[in-house]
């Protein structure tokens, strides 16, 4: 055993100062002095003590724990006689730690300044790799971040500034431009519209049913609809998470954080489908039920020589199971989303092709001379020159006050007609209402009818002269009205037909010769200020001219210039009908916007109603124009709605011919027979696309989908069936 090393009494124990910056250089050797270095690190222990004077003698002052009084004692001059070997003081451990701390802090600050100040700092400060599609701009932060053009001081100022900042989403929209007119608002929709939808959903949802967490979140989080500047793209699309990161990923709960009707999962709480996918009327009148139950079982009714669709040949007797597939008429489109109809020729022509081409019905009217007031005009003293006496009309064409839509367009270039039009419209309305005696004309009305008659004559005269420049000028009048590309195409088609089709000019000249034999003279007299007096005469059918089976022809006794279709998808008839759908809107806006107003198509004659609009429905658009659905449902790649569905993966998973798994027939409905007949007989088109007319299938229920779409099976993510960005 040895004695304890450490003493703690005052005389034996030295006072340690580890918190000072310097310590004696001999400390490591265990030979430190009791004086120690000064604060600048200089050894100040030259001698072992500083003797003190006691009376007239100097005495040793060496501490006891360093040996006490020495034997030699102080020198006579008062200096210590024991010299100390000077040391090189060293830093204390504490001070070395402080120094290391300072060094590390300076290095950290320097590293940050280099990273943020250097032009090559982008790659260092970038929080991660960009996705594959954005990778080309990895080194160009300013492409997406406006802050990249600012200074560090501006960034700091931005953090301190409590005002809401404009975000970088505009940078995103420079490339992602097809996101609608309000791409940054929630769902790209008007905030007010979305709020009203939200309120509707809130009212419809069952209180107390939503999960507790969502209810809590609803109260705790900000409402995205209140964001005045819209929602930043970066809220959902989080970049810098690697090349393979899915930028569009969004959890179900994130969707529900904003939605009013909150629920646990698709199978538990999701609202039942509301008539999906038949929220609107089908674009083509087609009764699947009747076709399945009646027509497809009796193909002997098909006309001899007709081509039976390949897939339907054996449908009736069931000898070829594949022939019973819906794919006989419907095929997936290139994207696999829709199952569009394969087209008239493939799906319908076998039975309905002959109907289109049969010539039992008259063609579509372009011009009519019907003007019931011609006799009254004489009594009123009007002068309209020669005017043929026409045979009585029938059906839609019997309304002699009416003006054909296309005729209205062509007459609109005549200043005389424009002056009379207002009076003509009022006269027509009064007679329709029964408030006007048809046999009574005042001077103003007689003048309007006279102007109309001369406008028709001038039109026929001008069209008949073949003055191409003048005729095309008439159509130029329409250009400011028909602004969109589709309208321009319609005008081009009509122009080409009227002025380049030899059958049109032949028919027109024949009509002019028969109806107005002295038209050239009459127009000359009119221009000379001497309009000829009214002189009615009977029109005799031309012995050598028969109604054409296709193309333009003049129906002389009827006073009509008509066009007969050359087959299905006749471009001219489509153009005429499309223009007719726009004319009411142009002529009289208030009348056109009245749903109960007369159909402009009926005035074109039975061809339009029986042959074209018998299958193709008409939708009234927001601006009042009537748009004909020439094709079935198709999804434009430039538009996106809330709900999405792709047939392709379902065709792969389900049996190819088992479409009835989802599309079950609605056998108990009387389909749209009533509406069908109404149009054919009353010439009134149903222009409401949201009416309930369906194609004979029952709406799909949620249960059909939840059989597979669960979190355990094929997934029930919101984004599987819904889009966030809505745009047209």
């Amino acid at each position, binding site marked *: 055993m040895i004695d304890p*090393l450490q003493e703690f009494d005052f005389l034996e124990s030295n006072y340690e100062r580890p918190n000072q910056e310097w310590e004696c250089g001999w400390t490591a050797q265990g030979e430190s002095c009791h004086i120690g270095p000064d604060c600048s690190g200089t050894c100040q222990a030259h001698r072992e003590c500083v003797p003190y004077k006691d009376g007239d003698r100097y005495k040793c002052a060496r501490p006891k724990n360093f040996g006490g009084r020495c034997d030699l004692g102080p020198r006579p001059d008062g200096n210590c006689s024991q010299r100390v070997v000077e040391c090189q003081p060293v830093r204390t*451990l504490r001070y070395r730690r402080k120094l*290391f*701390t300072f060094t590390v802090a300076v290095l950290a600050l320097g590293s940050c300044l280099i990273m943020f100040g250097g032009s090559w700092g982008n790659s260092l400060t970038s929080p991660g790799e960009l996705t594959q599609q954005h990778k080309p701009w990895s080194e160009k932060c300013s492409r997406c*971040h406006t802050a990249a053009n600012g200074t560090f001081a501006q960034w700091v100022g931005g953090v301190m500034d409590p005002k809401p900042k*404009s975000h970088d989403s505009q940078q995103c929209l420079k490339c992602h431009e097809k996101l609608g007119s309000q791409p940054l608002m929630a769902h790209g929709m008007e905030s007010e519209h979305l709020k009203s939808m939200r309120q509707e959903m809130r009212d419809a949802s069952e209180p107390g049913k939503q999960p507790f967490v969502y209810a809590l979140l609803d109260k705790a989080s900000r409402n995205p609809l209140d964001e005045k500047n819209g929602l930043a793209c970066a*809220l959902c699309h989080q970049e810098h998470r690697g090349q393979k990161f899915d930028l569009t990923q969004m959890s179900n709960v994130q969707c529900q954080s904003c939605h009013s009707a909150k629920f646990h999962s698709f199978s538990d709480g999701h609202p039942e489908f509301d008539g999906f996918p038949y929220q609107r009327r089908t674009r083509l009148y087609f009764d699947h039920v009747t076709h399945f139950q009646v027509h497809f079982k009796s193909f002997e009714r098909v006309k001899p020589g007709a081509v039976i669709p390949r897939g339907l040949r054996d449908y009736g007797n069931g000898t070829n199971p594949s022939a019973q597939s819906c794919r006989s008429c419907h095929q997936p489109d290139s994207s696999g989303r829709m199952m569009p109809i394969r087209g008239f020729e493939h799906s319908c022509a076998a039975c309905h092709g002959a109907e289109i081409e049969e010539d039992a019905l008259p063609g579509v009217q372009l011009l009519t001379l019907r003007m019931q007031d011609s006799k009254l005009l004489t009594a009123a003293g009007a002068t309209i020159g020669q005017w043929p006496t026409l045979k009585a009309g029938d059906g839609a064409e019997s309304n002699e006050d009416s003006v054909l839509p296309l005729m209205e367009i062509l007459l609109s270039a005549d200043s005389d007609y424009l002056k009379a039009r207002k009076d003509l419209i009022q006269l027509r309305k009064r007679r329709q209402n029964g408030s006007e005696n048809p046999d009574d004309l005042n001077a103003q009305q007689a003048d309007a009818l006279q102007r109309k008659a001369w406008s028709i004559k001038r039109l026929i005269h001008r069209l008949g002269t073949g003055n191409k420049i003048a005729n095309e000028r008439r159509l130029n009048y329409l250009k400011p009205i028909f602004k969109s590309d589709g309208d321009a195409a319609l005008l081009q088609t009509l122009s080409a037909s009227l002025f380049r089709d030899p059958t049109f000019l032949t028919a027109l000249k024949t009509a002019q010769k028969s109806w107005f034999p002295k038209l050239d003279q009459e127009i000359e007299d009119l221009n000379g200020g001497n309009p000829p007096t009214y002189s009615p005469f009977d029109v005799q059918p031309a012995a050598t001219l028969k109604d054409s089976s296709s193309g333009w022809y003049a129906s002389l006794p009827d006073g009509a210039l008509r066009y007969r279709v050359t087959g299905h998808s006749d471009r001219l008839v489509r153009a005429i009908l499309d223009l007719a759908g726009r004319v009411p809107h142009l002529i009289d806006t208030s009348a056109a916007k009245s749903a109960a107003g007369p159909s402009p198509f009926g005035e074109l004659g039975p061809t339009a109603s029986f042959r074209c609009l018998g299958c193709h429905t008409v939708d009234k658009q927001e601006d009042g124009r009537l748009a004909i659905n020439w094709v079935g449902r198709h999804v434009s790649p430039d538009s996106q709605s809330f709900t999405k569905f792709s047939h392709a993966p379902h065709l792969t998973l389900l049996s190819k011919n088992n479409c009835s798994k989802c599309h079950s027939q609605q056998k108990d409905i009387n389909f749209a027979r009533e509406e069908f007949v109404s149009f054919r007989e009353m010439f009134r088109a149903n222009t409401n696309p949201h009416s309930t007319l369906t194609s004979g299938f029952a709406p799909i229920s949620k249960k059909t989908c939840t059989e597979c779409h669960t979190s355990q099976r094929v997934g029930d993510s919101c984004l599987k069936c819904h889009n966030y960005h809505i745009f047209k």
Partner: protein
Amino acid sequence: MRSLAARRWYSLGVFALLAAVILALYAILSFSIHPTSFASGWTLWGLILALAAYNVRKRLTFLPLGSSSKWLQVHIYGGLLSFVLFIVHVEFRVPSGAFELSLTLLYFIVFFSGLGGLAISRAIPARLTTRGEEVLFERIPKFTKRIRDDVENIVLGCISETQTTAIPEFYVEHLKHFFDGPRHFWQHLFQSSRPRNDLLGEIRSHERFLNKDERAAVQRIIDLICAKDDLDHQYALQWTLKVWLFAHIPFTYALVIFSVFHLVLAHAFAGGSE
């Protein structure tokens, strides 16, 4: 006054409660489309500053800011809480990008050095009492020298008294290095007595060749070897107690500096998502 165990349970309970609140808030807020990283980031930054303030508190002893032991308790459990916040902030993924990785690395250095320091400061003081004499760290060189001087006096005494050179030769060959300074650091840190036993075994293997006086001298040398070994044990443990702060404190400042830049960068480049 609560007992140590009760105090520890109380602190653990508060920590667990706060951690649960943080995780629950994260779970709820992550349902929203608004990112949680800004809320968690500001909270974490505030907590880091508060933790760093403990070092400042130790310097401001004259201010009535609560006892240092309470500050230490808050520092420890706050540090543990910062890890929960950090994990929430990075959303349970490894950050990418040089700057963010550096920041993460700094955080881990500070956190794990703190965790290590906590373990050290809990384990070592108890071990210091188990062997030898408890001495001030700054005095260890002086005591080492005193022991070395004692040993050398014994060895020199052997030459003059016994006229043999066996012990001096043995000292020069086997013991001088041992007595010259602190030795066997890692062995002492990991509580290994093997170097001491090896040295003693070496001496004892030579003991049978010595005469009576030499044996008496050897016995005194053995005592001094044990004293020196205990001193080395004290040195190793006390040095460790002091040196772990070399990792914890300097990198805390680096972490604060990096986090300020990160904060500015995150806001400037948030793209409006904040």
